[in-house]
């Protein structure tokens, strides 16, 4: 399947992830596998996505790699994120090499520790991540599902903050203190499952959506982008991919954002 070079990619805002330019809207591939994953990634590229998010755990890196090989987009235009599962402590380089082989890449743009291993910061792994970055095998390194305390522990031991922390993040998860802590440390907050904790039928979302002539789903994605939070969205359907990407065109008012912030169900700090 060939791809085209749409203009959709140009309207996606970006973030500075420790010196690496990262699109704020990415295409998530979990739980797709095989040909379905390959076709979906190629379709996503064709409608304008440039960041593709996978993980060793997803068992679809080879399928994503097939899409990377098939597209006529230059590798330098694409941003590939993958993640090392926590059970690979001590085997970081092996895991990275397997990811590179499966993806058919000579480097990965963003490599994350998928979960804190055993609830610990994972300093041993982080040192290996820093080394891989310094050797040019990955351009940026980060974490996923980490608390502020765990991130500070990594910095305390190595002097290196993660470029990105990918967490479940949507209006229901909104925590201004956590977001502020990430911002202060220069960590780009990235949202996975941005709709999971959100009641899309909530009157506030329905009202904002109605006034903008969009869906509550679009509003949630636009709300994340307003906060400079990267979002990873997934769908195997082209029309929904396009609709998700179009959230980049939706500008919410300060009153909209304040109202959506108020939907949080978070009562304790992360």
């Amino acid at each position, binding site marked *: 399947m060939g791809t085209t070079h749409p203009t959709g990619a140009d309207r996606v805002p970006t973030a500075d992830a420790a010196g690496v330019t990262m699109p704020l809207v990415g295409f998530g591939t979990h*739980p797709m596998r095989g040909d379905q994953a390959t076709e979906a990634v190629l379709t996503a590229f064709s409608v304008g996505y440039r960041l593709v998010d996978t993980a060793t*755990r997803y*068992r679809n890196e080879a399928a994503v790699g097939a899409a990377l090989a098939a597209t006529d987009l230059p590798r330098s235009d694409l941003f590939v994120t993958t993640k090392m*599962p*926590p*059970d690979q*402590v*001590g085997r970081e380089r092996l895991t990275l090499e397997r990811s590179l082989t499966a993806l058919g890449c000579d480097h990965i743009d963003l490599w994350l520790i*998928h*979960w*804190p*291993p*055993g*609830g*610990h910061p*994972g300093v*041993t792994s982080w040192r290996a991540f820093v080394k891989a970055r310094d050797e040019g095998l990955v351009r940026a390194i980060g974490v996923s599902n980490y608390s502020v305390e765990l991130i500070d522990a990594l910095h305390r031991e190595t002097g290196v903050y993660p470029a990105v922390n990918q967490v479940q993040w949507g209006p229901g998860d909104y925590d201004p203190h956590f977001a502020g802590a990430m911002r202060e440390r220069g960590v780009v907050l990235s949202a996975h499952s941005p709709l999971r904790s959100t009641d899309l039928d909530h009157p506030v979302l329905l009202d904002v959506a109605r006034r903008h002539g969009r869906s509550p789903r679009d509003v949630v994605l636009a709300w994340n982008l307003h906060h400079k939070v990267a979002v990873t969205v997934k769908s195997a359907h082209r029309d929904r991919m396009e609709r998700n990407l179009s959230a980049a065109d939706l500008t919410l008012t300060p009153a909209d954002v304040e109202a959506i912030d108020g939907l949080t169900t978070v009562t304790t700090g992360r």
Partner: protein
Amino acid sequence: MATAATHQATAALDRLRGRLDKAGFGALLLTSRTGRRYALGPVPGSADATAVLLTTDGTVASATGDLAAATAAALRAAGIAGGMVATEADLPPDVLGQTDGTGVRLRPAADLVFAELACCEPGEQPAFAAAAELAAVGYTAVMDHLRVGMDVRELSGNVDRSVRRAGGLLGWYDPYDADGAAGTDLVTVRGHDPATARLTATVPLRYVLHPLLDGTAGYAAATAVLSKADGPLRTAGDVCAAATAALLAALRPGARLTDGYAAFEREAGGHGAACRLVALRGGGASAPLPPDSAVVAEPGMVLGVRTGVQVPGRGAVELAETVALTAEGAEPQAGTPLRLVELY
């Protein structure tokens, strides 16, 4: 009470009858739960039968009651007064003595049944892959969330959510006895502090996952320690990993499956180690391969492999996988690490 009927043979029963014929038996007496269910299928109430008799001419007879009476009743219902009947190995000898009085000659058939339960037709492979995949989902749901001090009861909740998202169900019920059940998944956990139900940093956590989809079981187990392993634990982990690898390497087409047992013993001897191979079809009972089995490995078999090595005073390292046998050998299906996982 015994019933007898000539069934429209299903493909599975046809295959089982073919094995009977090839082995020179006129009938097969199934007394284990797995065997009975395999023969009768997921029919509500099938577990009530005590003995099921299958003949090469297409008759399936089942009987309830105590084993001796049910066996005799099933034989009568099938009209068998003499000839060679194969029985599963776990049929008690006293039953054999009583039924001998009818003139029926009985021979063990554990290998015949195990081979049937382990063999997988190409069209059945997706079902085995799906069950193994569900085991992998359960593994991830446990492994990624572990932390020192975690209440072990949280784990079943995590597995439940993940398995539901993957299309399965988690429960301690029997899908054969529940109309419309899509499947079940069990997670058995050891290694937590029994007084507080919480995980510690030094005692290895072991968990076993038994997903069951439409009568096909997946199989996986893992052991993790929430710290860097110390000497004795790492030794046990290394021994278990090496012995498990040796077992898998021995499962090559043409070799006896028990060669896997021997390879494991050679590698792990003297370390309080144990292993077993199980068949994954026929419900959740997972029929084990008898230690004296002569079943030969052949492409198309799917097996559960479980191994363990004791850690003195601290439980054990246990590993398990669902493996498919191909012309090249044993291929892990769930893909969980066959080694001690150290989380630190």
